[in-house]
């Protein structure tokens, strides 16, 4: 916000100061409310097309050229649908849930920097804020499922809440590794720490042994927290009809979709910030041109993470409920704790090559140990008739 303020102040020197202040206040808000929902609309289209290609189909290509107007058509269709509220539903809660579900997703973007200095609020506790706000979606999901007065909705809600709470722990722990390495909770500073090196790339945390492990953990946790495949048990169609949004239709249903996608994109944005160097990349730096390049880098990384999510969704089957909990508590959480120790090694072992060897060895050994311990949970390879 300060950067925008200064930029505006220099550019429009002769307008009243309060106008500049208000503008500097409103621009980030407008950005968050404009750009990310637009990316959401685009993502729905890209996701459908990419899933189609993954399954050797075309995907939507009827509305407009290459189907680019499909999100518009979807939106119109869903706006015109009838809004049905079950007679026995808890009306107020039923109404409130879809409103609340969009809020956490949008709040996370407040602390995601898109260019040098360009972050809506540079909180000193940015990472913690993003993770804490991300948890709040569980409440909205529970409200939705409970207010619908439907067994399947309630089951979906209970699954959603249990899943979000369980996967919150390893996700936060994976974030703690980055916080320890960067020595700060501010997202802007974390991104700045990842600059420099070869082409602004080599210092990204994902290119460290602990960073790679943390990245994988964080991506898995992010998928689980935004209830995307392969962790979409709360809305498993084949088991629960639609989970917590079974009893929603029309615009409220659209809000649920939007909240889910926004949360997923927010987690992708936080992942980019923490592990993939945020806006850092060749050519990004201060100044207008550098900022634009940085923005380009950030959004292409975000797009890459979204594509990774889509790829995973198109490939992996859904987990079973017991496997889900076991995976979080028996594999991810120990690995995250081990990862924190690995960051400690990284910090204190002075010759870098030694730190590389020790950290990598430590993580690999623990990974193998964990695999061995969980061997009973790993399924035997099965032969299918249609290979």
């Amino acid at each position, binding site marked *: 916000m300060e950067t925008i303020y200064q930029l505006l102040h220099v550019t429009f020197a002769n307008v009243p100061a309060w106008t500049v202040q208000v503008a500097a206040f409103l621009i980030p808000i407008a950005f968050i409310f404009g750009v990310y929902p637009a990316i959401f609309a685009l993502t729905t289209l890209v996701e459908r097309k990419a899933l189609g290609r993954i399954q050797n189909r075309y995907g939507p290509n009827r509305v407009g050229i290459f189907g680019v107007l499909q999100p518009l058509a979807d939106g119109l269709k869903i706006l015109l649908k009838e809004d049905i509220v079950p007679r026995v539903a*808890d009306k107020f809660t039923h109404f409130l849930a879809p409103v609340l579900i969009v809020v956490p997703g949008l709040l996370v973007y407040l602390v995601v920097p898109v260019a040098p200095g360009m972050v809506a609020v540079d*909180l000193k506790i940015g990472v*913690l804020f993003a993770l804490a706000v991300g*948890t709040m979606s*569980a*409440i909205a999901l529970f409200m939705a499922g*409970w207010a619908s007065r439907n067994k399947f909705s309630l089951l979906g809600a*209970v699954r959603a809440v249990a899943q979000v*709470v369980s996967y919150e722990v390893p996700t936060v722990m994976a974030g703690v590794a980055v916080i320890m390495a960067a020595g*700060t909770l501010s997202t802007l500073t974390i991104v700045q720490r990842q600059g420099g090196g070869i082409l602004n790339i080599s210092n990204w945390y994902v290119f460290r042994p602990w960073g790679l492990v943390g990245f994988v953990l964080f991506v898995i946790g992010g998928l689980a927290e935004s209830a995307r495949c392969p962790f979409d048990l709360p809305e498993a169609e084949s088991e629960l009809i639609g989970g917590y949004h079974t009893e929603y239709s029309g615009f409220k249903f659209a809000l649920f979709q939007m909240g889910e996608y926004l949360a997923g994109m927010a987690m992708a944005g936080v992942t980019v910030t923490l592990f993939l160097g945020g806006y850092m990349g060749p050519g990004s730096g201060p100044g207008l041109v550098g900022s634009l390049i940085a923005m380009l880098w950030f959004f292409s990384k975000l797009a890459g993470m979204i594509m990774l999510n889509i790829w995973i969704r198109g490939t992996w089957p859904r987990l079973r409920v017991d496997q889900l909990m076991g995976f979080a508590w028996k594999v991810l959480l120990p690995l995250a704790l081990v990862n924190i120790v690995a960051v400690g090694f990284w910090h204190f072992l002075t010759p870098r090559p030694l730190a590389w060897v020790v950290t990598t060895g430590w993580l690999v050994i623990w990974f193998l140990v964990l695999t061995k311990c969980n061997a009973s949970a790993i399924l035997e390879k099965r032969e299918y008739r249609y290979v």
Partner: protein
Amino acid sequence: MNIAFWIISAVAVLGAVLAVTLRNLVHCVLALILFFIGIAAHYFLLRADFLGTVQILIYVGAVAVLILFAIMLTHNVTGVDGPKELLGVKWWSGAAIAATLAILLKKAILSDPLATLLPAGDKAQSSVAEIGKALVAGWVVSLEAIAILLTAALIGAVVIALEEIQKS
């Protein structure tokens, strides 16, 4: 800023009142969440943003969910308390207790010179680094004690809740 104080206070008080008076247990928890968020907002207003975030993370994200699960595991959730508990003798006695306590506390608070204390000036956010340093420097024993307490509480909760299952 003054307006923020009054709005947030209203939200917190509303949440607290609804949390202890509503009939529907799940509504109670939702009101309690409102109260927690109000308190978190107060922390942000008091420039303790680390505490505010911790409040959201722990109370909204964990404790409220825990209570919701406890309700799911114990009750058939809706309309169990019945209207007679509300606005009955008990309710009035409770209201009287609350009013008496509030009035007494108010008198005690207002009689103290501290009550008119104003903040010294607009200060920066509190640093998380300071809290962290203090935690592992001066208060490390307390920190470890809290860690042990949490572990013990975790194990204790599991043992208590599992007991009956093992018997049967």
